[in-house]
């Protein structure tokens, strides 16, 4: 690990929880893995905690699958309680003299890799006295909407809007939900295997995404015309670098210079020594699951051929 962290220039501590003592203490031992699965038993449900100066959790992030992970930039935002977009992130300005709009792709400078969550950050700055509407609005008025789209395999989650405040319009005897002053809307997004998978070479070097925004600005007297605006970004796909291990292919598109074989050999030997029977059972299970996988692949190929006929 010392060699690994030197090679990868890791400036933070890598802690070893060899017997999963802290993982159990935290209550995040992956107990859907049986103790018999000797290579995996003891792993945690992966996740991240951010704590304040007192050590109290201010934010945490656990996803439904280990494949999905937050960008480091998003974790830092959560820890510090604000969004800071790097200057190097893809970004664009829009809007007009009355409402300024700034759209940025936040996290990893907008690069795309399977399961890593980035975020669109859409900042509105309405001029003095102006407000924008949240849903619901009466017929003829336009609430603020954000629609992001991209290639198949790029998953955009629901936009996250900040809280609105209530505004009573006496002339219409109506209470509406509005945003005043500068505010930000975020849209988390991540690619799945259809677009970017570490198990095969990338099909393309970049993808195009579009962010379509509709809104209407009003002051307490009058409304401006509804507006729509569209922003386009070209985002690069990341090549995933992994240590070089002969028996462990398919975990990256580029095998790095670091040789992970000695570590894997030590792990094998330790598991074999500690749990000789479990080791053998694990291998049998592995082979059985691989065979089932091959059967499914054959079956689906056969069905495709039938359709072709």
């Amino acid at each position, binding site marked *: 690990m010392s060699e690994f962290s030197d090679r990868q220039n890791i400036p933070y501590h890598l802690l070893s929880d060899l017997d999963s003592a802290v993982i159990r*203490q935290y209550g995040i031992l992956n107990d859907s893995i049986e103790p018999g699965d000797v290579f995996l038993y003891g*792993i945690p449900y992966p996740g991240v905690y951010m704590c304040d100066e007192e050590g109290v959790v201010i934010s945490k992030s656990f996803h439904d699958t280990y494949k999905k992970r937050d960008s480091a930039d998003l974790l830092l935002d959560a820890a510090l309680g604000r969004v800071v977009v790097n200057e190097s992130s893809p970004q664009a300005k829009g809007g007009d003299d009355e409402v300024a709009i700034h759209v940025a792709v936040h996290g990893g400078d907008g690069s795309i890799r399977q399961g890593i969550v980035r975020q669109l950050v859409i900042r509105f700055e309405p001029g003095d006295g102006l407000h924008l509407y949240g849903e619901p609005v009466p017929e003829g008025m336009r609430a603020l909407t954000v629609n992001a789209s991209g290639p198949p395999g790029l998953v955009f989650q629901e936009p996250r809007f900040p809280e609105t405040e209530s505004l009573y319009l006496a002339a219409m005897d109506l209470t509406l939900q509005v945003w005043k002053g500068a505010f930000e809307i975020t849209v988390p997004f991540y690619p799945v295997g259809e677009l970017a*998978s570490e198990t095969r070479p990338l099909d393309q070097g970049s993808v195009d995404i579009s962010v379509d925004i509709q809104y209407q600005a009003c002051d307490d007297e009058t409304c401006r015309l509804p507006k729509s605006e569209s922003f386009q970004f070209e985002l690069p796909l990341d090549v995933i670098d992994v*240590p070089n291990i002969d028996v462990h292919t398919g975990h990256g598109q580029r095998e790095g210079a670091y040789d992970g074989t000695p570590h894997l050999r030590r792990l094998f030997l330790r598991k074999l020594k500690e749990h000789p029977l479990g080791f053998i059972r694990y291998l049998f299970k592995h082979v059985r699951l691989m065979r089932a996988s091959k059967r499914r692949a054959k079956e689906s190929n056969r069905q495709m051929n039938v359709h072709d006929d």
Partner: protein
Amino acid sequence: MVVERDELGFDAPAPLGHPARLGLPEGQSTGPEVGERLPDFVLPDQNGNPISFHEHRAGKRAVLVFYRSAVW
């Protein structure tokens, strides 16, 4: 190698149904909640030095990541 895609759309080298691919079960607790203090612990770092979590933070904020596997 056959690569199978799971129901969330992700690819991995291990076959479907392999324990390596299991996700977070519904209703599974994910440890200390927002507002609770992180339990203290001492673990060795990559150079073998024991790190006492809260002492090491020295009154600063920290990000604590639990990672499920790595190939060093």
